[in-house]
């Protein structure tokens, strides 16, 4: 509560910049979640566990001397398969959206236990060549790991947006989300597309995981800390929209950073959730 004195312009713009960086990670984490929820009607809480598992695997590979970005070559196909397998299971038992939330919560617990068994509950920090680097633009410091996150988040969001908008596959997926039986009647192979999409979502989680490992200290219980704010970004951005989570995530990140700079860090959560509540109540159609 103390000290509402306005910080200096430099500090404020550095805050905004760091808000953009953390917002990009919100967006990247939210991207797969939003696609899964909007297009597959499955709320995948395990998305966060996937990201953390990928982060730990990236950390482990880095310990063996593998470049974190190179580890994506292994992690992306691996998590694609995990995501597709999970979706196959849920489709096999025709799990409802709400039960998918609970089922993936159970899965999150299992993955958390696995991570804790292998890597313990202690904090881990990835040491990489990128970690040390930062450069200065004008008065502002730009850390390289965060910059990588931003580039990946923007590139992947636009790539997914383009696929959904311009390719037949993307159109088929959107059609199937709107009305699956009708889409099937028009020859959309919905089962295959859904597996593809679920795999992609998990693969996106693994990319987000690598970004997490690059900039943050890891602990298994930390995965729950991201759920609330990333959900807020997904809902604000609109379900199943590729650019939504990035835009909303950046908005939340920047407003959190400014709140922290002006008041104190402990007030930050109130921003994203008040935004979410305001939007849901004023424009409820936005998130359905």
């Amino acid at each position, binding site marked *: *509560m103390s000290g509402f004195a306005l910080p200096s312009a430099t500090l404020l713009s550095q805050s905004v910049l760091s808000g953009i960086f953390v917002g990009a990670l919100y967006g990247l984490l939210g991207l797969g979640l939003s696609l899964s929820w909007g297009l597959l009607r499955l*709320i995948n809480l395990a998305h966060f566990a996937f990201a953390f598992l990928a982060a730990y695997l990236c950390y482990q590979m880095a310990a063996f001397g593998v470049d974190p970005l190179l580890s994506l070559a292994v992690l992306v196909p691996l998590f694609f398969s995990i995501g597709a397998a999970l979706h196959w*299971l849920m489709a096999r*038992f025709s*799990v*409802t*959206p*709400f*039960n998918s939330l*609970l*089922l993936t*919560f*159970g*899965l*999150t*617990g*299992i993955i*958390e*236990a*696995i991570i*804790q*068994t292998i890597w313990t509950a202690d904090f881990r920090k990835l040491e990489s060549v990128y970690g040390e680097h930062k450069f200065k633009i004008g008065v502002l410091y730009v850390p390289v790991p965060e910059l990588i996150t931003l580039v990946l988040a923007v590139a992947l969001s636009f790539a997914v947006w383009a696929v959904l908008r311009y390719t037949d596959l993307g159109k088929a997926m959107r059609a199937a989300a709107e009305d699956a039986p009708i889409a099937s009647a028009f020859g959309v192979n919905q089962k295959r597309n859904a597996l593809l999409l679920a795999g992609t979502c998990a693969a996106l989680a693994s990319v987000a995981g690598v970004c997490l490992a690059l900039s943050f200290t890891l602990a298994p219980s930390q995965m*729950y800390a991201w*759920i*609330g704010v990333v*959900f*807020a970004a997904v*809902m604000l951005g609109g379900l199943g929209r590729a650019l939504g989570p990035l835009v909303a995530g950046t908005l939340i990140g920047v407003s959190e950073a400014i709140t922290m700079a002006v008041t*104190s860090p*402990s*007030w*930050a*959560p*109130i921003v994203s*959730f*008040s935004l*979410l*509540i305001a939007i*849901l*109540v004023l424009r*409820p*159609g936005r*998130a*359905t």
Partner: protein
Amino acid sequence: MKSGHVKSGTMKRTPLIILAAGIALAFVPKLGLPAFYDSLLYLMLHWIVLATSWNILSGYTGYFSFGHGAFFGAGLYTTSTLLARYDWPFLATLPVAALVAAVLGVALGAVVFRVKGVRGELFALLTLAITFVIGTIVVNTPLDGGQGVSLSAVPVPAIGPTQSSTFYLLALAAATLTMLTAWGIYVSKFGAGLFAIHDDEDAAEVMGVPTYRYKLVALAISCALAGVAGGIHAMFLSYVTVGEVFTITVPLTVVLMSVLGGSRHWAGPAIGAVAITALLYSFTAANHAIAGKAMVGVILIAAILFMPDGILLRLQALFKRAPKLAPGTAHPPSKIATPSGTPSAPPSTAASGDVLLRVRGLQKSFKGVRALAGVDVDVRRGEILGLLGPNGSGKSTFINVVSGHYVPTAGEIVFEGRDLGGLAAHRIAGAGIARTYQIPRPFAHMSVLDNVALATMFGGAVGDPAEARKRAMTWLEFTGLHGKAAARPDDLNLHQRKFLELARALASRPRLVLLDEVLCGLTPSEIDDAVALIRRIRDQGSTIVFVEHVMRAVMALTDRVVVFNHGELLAEGSATEVMQRAAVMTAYLGKAHVVLPTPQAAHA
């Protein structure tokens, strides 16, 4: 689920069993077990209160709340603040904790439930967001101040022989109260309304369930009980922090317990709470906390995949063989019943009675599209009025506005001299208007009999569920569905579902019935049955507005017809005469290329 019919014997016995169990368990501290057992049992009871209270709103109505941490936390911080700052006696803080939690819930619900689009998943996320907002406020204000609140200096009242047994007894009392409340709601008219909201909120409202008020009341009760649990837990923990309370863990645990036990049954969450607490405790006690976490995950996944309705319903399904016959099925099935009792208004004798429903200048626009552009319609007591018009002419909008589903943009609707404009749908149902849906919308998880009994209770204002079922049975006989009383709506064919719609509409004893294309999709012989049934509906005293495309039925049934086109009244008169008019033929069939002389072109 409410599939069975609660026998009056069990009705009386269940609360006694809950009370007896509560009293018997109160003697556990006398056994002198190690304090460890008191704590384990305390935690079980604590989670029973939280899971069961959550279920009263979320299990019964289907509005999953992820805000139970906030309501629980509100109670917890109320008690700890009153104890630490104002030196209140502990027991006196509990009602305040309940009140604060309930006020918080009602304030949230009053905003959220007003927004039409907020259903299901959105409600879940909103309540989750509220948890973090309130947590942030608490941690940043002197309520907590970021350091947590210590209650170690506060004396624990000596209720039991030891401190741990005191907590056990307090939680036992709260759990008994919670279970009694959950059961009481489950078997009441209120509970039936909540379950109807779960299955189809719009249809429930149209049947006369005051959905907004019911959701708020359920939320208030749910929050109050969670607040009590929070108050007791504050004392139990003796040191409270925001990080452990306003989290996603509390709501997820109660959801898990309720889903595992069965969220459509009053006792389901309690079973889930005992199972999961025991499971977690056995793992932590054996120093396998990590394995325990994984085990809970595995069990949750297995439960969702193999028992999506929960343990309790699964067990019920195993032990219940053929569905029991409903209490009223003893009647000979061939008997054509005429429902006993007189309609709530004297039946009319003449078809040309006084005006029952007077609609003047009725308009309804959707974002600029005028579905109704100012229509005047009179419905006379005792008549069957056909409402005709091509697709998109505003017939269904008319029904939706009159039944209160939409608020009219302009115009007035007067029913029996009472202005209905802008009234909520359940009030209009209560005023004596019932409707059917073109595509039947039965409550999927209720038996056919309970579907009709719901309309009897709400539209028909019968308070006692048993009495409502008895009356509902006569309406099933009236529509020939008595053989299907115990079946689920899913087991009915379209013809039977349409008749179920009729039975539900009639069960509220309406003076006016709005029938929206009841014949659509039926075979010719089924149409004959339906036409005969509609005649009998009129004969037992209801006035009917009949939207239909099947001209054979319109000709056979209606006393008068009105024809809509582009949201305007095009013609009015007897069916045979109106259908000859050129304007009506043009509206239906398009313009002829050769313009024929039009003998009756004038409007009515």
